[in-house]
């Protein structure tokens, strides 16, 4: 039983990482009408930048993460101005551009960092033990930080004017424009913020797992799964979707062959979509 509880906790922590990517996916889709599959690559930028500034340049970890976030945001701004602004509200074009961007960014990372995995020194060493349940301290820190950022994003979107404007635009672009919402700026802002979120996720990811240039491609699928599971457009649902996915994978691997770990989350997703096509928290039309 303790092993199961341990894996539920582990799944929740891992799921919060899926959740932050899912949040970026859901926000970008709501405002720009594109599914940005390249978000995983902005996560990769954040991860490598954090590793570099922390392990190579020997800067404190929080500073390294912040620099990673800034780099991911700047890369997001460049990508938006050079590519994504020409694909607004065109799902297919946006998808194609983001897939192309994955290739370019992955190749760039390969050139810079090679395939040799980069593993960061422990930021917060040691584990927390409760009976037979052992959780690395850093995983707990990562979870708390992710929940805080996702919570603050939700608060900002529900309370601040900019957040209300964003939601208004997502619901009815024409009406929002007529009410004086700066739509172009808003779209760019959301893309950049999503990339910064992904960069933040990447920075924390670097403190837990080893890095390879392909990490973004593997992780974005989880983010998209989590967003669909929750229902695209639901911000807190994105976190819940990620957590459900993480727990399903972790506990599923205990009782079923771990060789098919990814399948357990997918089977669960398909089962949910059969009964709730708009996702767990999506509005049924």
């Amino acid at each position: 039983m303790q092993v199961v509880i341990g894996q539920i906790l582990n799944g929740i922590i891992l799921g919060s990482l899926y959740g932050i990517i899912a949040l970026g996916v859901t926000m970008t889709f709501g405002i720009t009408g594109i599914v940005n599959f390249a978000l995983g690559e902005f996560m990769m930028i954040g991860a490598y930048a954090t590793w570099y500034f922390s392990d190579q340049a020997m800067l404190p970890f929080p500073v390294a993460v912040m620099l990673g976030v800034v780099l991911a945001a700047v890369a997001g701004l460049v990508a938006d101005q050079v590519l994504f602004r020409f694909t607004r509200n065109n799902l297919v074009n946006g998808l194609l551009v983001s897939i192309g961007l994955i290739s370019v960014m992955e190749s760039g990372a390969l050139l810079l960092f090679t395939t040799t995995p980069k593993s960061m020194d422990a930021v917060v060493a040691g584990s927390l033990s409760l009976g037979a349940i052992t959780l690395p301290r850093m995983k707990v820190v990562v979870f708390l930080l992710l929940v805080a950022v996702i919570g603050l994003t939700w608060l900002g979107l529900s309370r601040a004017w900019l957040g209300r404007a964003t939601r208004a635009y997502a619901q009815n672009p024409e009406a929002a424009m007529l009410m004086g919402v700066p739509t172009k700026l808003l779209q760019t802002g959301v893309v950049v913020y999503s990339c910064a979120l992904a960069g933040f996720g990447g920075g924390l990811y670097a403190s837990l797992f080893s890095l390879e240039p392909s990490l973004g491609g593997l992780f974005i699928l989880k983010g998209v799964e989590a967003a669909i599971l929750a229902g695209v457009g639901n911000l807190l649902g994105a976190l819940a979707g990620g957590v459900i996915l993480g727990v399903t994978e972790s506990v599923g691997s205990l009782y079923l062959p771990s060789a098919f770990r990814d399948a357990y989350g997918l089977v669960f997703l398909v089962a949910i979509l059969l009964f709730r096509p708009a996702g767990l928290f999506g509005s049924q039309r």
Partner: protein
Amino acid sequence: MKISLKGFFTGTLLAAAIPNLAFAQGIVKLGQIEAQTGPNAIYGFMSSQGVPVAVDEINRGGGFKVGDTTYKLELDALDTRGDPKEATIDLKKLLEQDKVKFVFGPFLSNVFVTIYPYAKQFNGKFLMLGGGTRIHEYVGQPGNEFLIRTWNWDAGPKGFGERMVDYLVKTAHPKKVAMLFQNDSAGKILGDTYEPMFKSRGIETMTEYFEPGTKDFSPVLAKISEFQPDYLFPGYSDAALYDIVRQSIEGNYSKKFFLVRGSTGPGLKNKDGLEDYIVYVPKDFEEAEKNDPKVKHFIEAYKAFYKRDFPYDQAPLCSSSCYDHVYMLVAAMQKAGTVDDVEKIRTTLLGMTYQGIWKISFDDHNEQVFDFDIVHLKKGGAKEVIHVEQ
């Protein structure tokens, strides 16, 4: 001035012939199919890095002579991205379009299994020097003369795996070993190969497989910990090993490791948390650099060619279809006196013992045999290197 017609033609012919006599030059095309990018690139990367260094050195040195002709090498290194379909297209280009007779790679078993039926059609017309684990099943069989496996095999009389398990038994006396491999062709083979080795020495085993691309190993490690193994035997590339070793130590699942694929990197990174880390390393470059001039030269040549640091932890993978093999192939061509007669070159190559970065020879099944190191790390990073001559 009168010039006779006969004299004019003689002069013209001589003028045309003399440069060819004095500077007869040719090109030998080499091909390479390795995953230079993609999730499994770690295994193709070092091979794709080492071959260009050797080609550049040979060409800058003026090429090599076979008979009266001086040849230079032309390398077409194609990136399969670890995708079997892409590898098939790459090989087709090399064999049919570029008429390449010597192909290095692949290192990935899933790639080899897919390209094998196509490659077999060209048996006798080219040589494929690859390190893939699954090549072991086909190499040395009639109809597969094109295959040469450039990696030590684990089992059998000269198997490095047998030597590794013997070392583990001798130094640690384990009763239980848990194996954790990637769920693919090579992972399954490792499981099938090592289970009997452990059992024959009275060691109980448990085998689990993980999905390619897995980063969080906590669930499978938790499952394994219930078996209470003395050693965890994970595989098979550093991409997974860094995470397995770290998470196993952090979660108190296992702190003793035995590896036959991978590097010392994951052990050194977690040196304060581990208790024991025994790993097969084709060569411990940091140690060898101090004593072996050929190793030192390779490291310097690598740095100069790529203008970046030498990847000490990945370099051991260079023992497969890499730097040494280009020189070895050239030596075989020179000894055979031909660059075109594939069968003659093959026979010469298989009969050679080449002393490069490694001492390389081939066994009766066209499988490479080379010397290697066992690196034994203890808590805190104390390192012992045991050199094993084959």
